[in-house]
């Protein structure tokens, strides 16, 4: 049933948080089944608080899973590794380091590259994300979009096999976001890295992804999978294509169902009074 060639495979993944205050376990994700094929760009959408970030953190190895299995190239994920790199929702840049210093931080932490090599490659990477000329600027001197480019460049420089992106463009204004989507597609088509992209924005998901996965309300699991058959390379005009709009409707309906569902039906095992 599961494709052997899958890059990432999640089977019945359960993730729980320990709530210190109420001294109880809180299930954020319950039974996620999905797989990401090599070279695929997979997007996950779903209602707020359904466990998307939680799931992605587990894939990165920042959170342990309480049940099921989560494998990358057939190996169980236990901790962060060089084969994955995360682009965080908040840029998480060191404010006292320049753009160049921040971009090399990832490889510096991994200890995989000599400093001179890191700097030389970081300069190329900075150019690739369109920040040439800002190598010596500090994060607080950059706009939000530029900070996210640094965040992206830092992840790309580590040359991961799989790129994890957690709503990287959510905080940007509409124009900047579209520009960043375009740039991301350009970079992705050059490198063809496997990527898992989380977003709130249905259009963004369809525009970028090969497949879009819709999560249910919390505790999150996969509700449905939509194959996006739109030819690449895609330019921004495709967002007005009839086929695009059909996908958008389908996904929108799917999320609406989740939002509209009466709460008591979600509490499993408790019959309505």
């Amino acid at each position, binding site marked *: 049933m599961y494709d052997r060639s899958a890059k990432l495979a999640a089977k019945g993944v359960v993730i729980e948080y320990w709530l210190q205050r109420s001294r109880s376990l809180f299930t954020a994700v319950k039974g996620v089944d999905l797989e990401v094929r090599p070279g695929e760009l997979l997007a996950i959408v779903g209602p707020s608080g359904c466990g998307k970030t939680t799931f992605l953190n587990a894939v990165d190895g920042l959170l342990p899973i309480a049940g099921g299995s989560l494998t990358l190239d057939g190996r169980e994920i236990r901790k962060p590794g060089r084969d994955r*790199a995360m682009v965080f929702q908040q840029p*998480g840049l060191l*404010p*006292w380091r320049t753009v160049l210093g921040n971009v090399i931080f990832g490889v510096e932490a*991994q200890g995989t590259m000599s400093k001179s090599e890191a700097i030389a490659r970081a300069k190329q990477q900075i150019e690739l994300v369109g920040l040439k000329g800002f190598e010596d600027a*500090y994060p607080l001197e950059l706009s939000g979009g530029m900070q996210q480019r640094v965040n992206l460049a830092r992840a790309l420089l580590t040359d991961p096999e799989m790129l994890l992106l957690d709503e990287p463009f959510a905080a940007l204004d509409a124009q900047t976001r579209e520009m960043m989507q375009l740039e991301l597609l350009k970079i992705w088509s050059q490198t063809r890295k496997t990527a898992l992209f989380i977003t709130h924005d249905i259009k963004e998901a369809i525009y970028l992804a090969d497949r879009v996965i819709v999560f249910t309300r919390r505790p999150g699991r996969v509700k449905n999978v939509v194959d996006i058959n739109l030819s690449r390379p895609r330019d921004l005009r495709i967002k007005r294509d009839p086929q695009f709009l059909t996908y958008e409707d389908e996904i929108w309906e799917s999320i609406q169902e989740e939002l509209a569902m009466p709460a008591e039906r979600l509490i499993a095992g408790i019959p309505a009074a």
Partner: protein
Amino acid sequence: MSIKEADRVLPVTTRESDPTRERRSVLRPSRIRMYEPLVIGTLSVFFALTVWQLVANARVYSVLFLPGPWDVAQAFVQLFQSDDIWLDIATSGEELAIGYGMAIVIGLTLGLLMGWYTRFQFGLDPFVNFFYSTPRIVFIPLFILWFGIELQPKIAVIFLGALFPIIINTMAGVRNTEAALLRVARSFGASDALTFRRVVLPGSVPFILTGFRLGIGHALTGLVVAEYIAAKHGVGQIIAIASQTFQTPKALAGVVLIAGTGMLLTTVLHRIENRFQSWRPQIR
């Protein structure tokens, strides 16, 4: 809203119709704005000194009771004409340098360890709380008993005075490291040592320097009080003897010397702080 903030949010406008009006940009403050703190500060000090001088000149009170700034200035010059002054300064300076220097080395080490290793903090917290809540000068009689009236009891008091603000601020700096930055470091597989050196330590610098600055105040207090109680030489001793013999201007000259030292050291630390903060956009 403070006046400073009001200044900041004023829109940067240029009136096209008035070509003589200077263009102001956010990036380059005008010359006058740059020197504003210095100019206003100096003027206000002059104003205060003038008022003080005028009140003293009225001679409602005797010089013994209320010397004017001029009397203090004269006493200051006289102080530096005496032979003992350099011995006094050297003595106090030595006590301060050793006591404060030790507080920096040990305070920084303990603060970093306590911030990074929770268990270490649990172990030392009771002691830090005990000593920090006790006015350290109550130990002076004990120190005199143990160390005599040479330099050692004063060094001990200065050391204890400066130590705790440095420990507490350093620890706070380490603890205040942004969780998001730690997560980034962990995500990229950074070792503990690298996370500490590259993320935690640089982020703690402002806190550490604040600790150093607070430490200076405590150290000088310790110095003066300890020399007040028992000393052969020292600036605190000058103040003590001068006030007991009703040489009020001389006592105040000693106070000026202490205050000047404090301000000088604080300024140096401020400069260092600014060097470390060059990444912050210049909004003053």
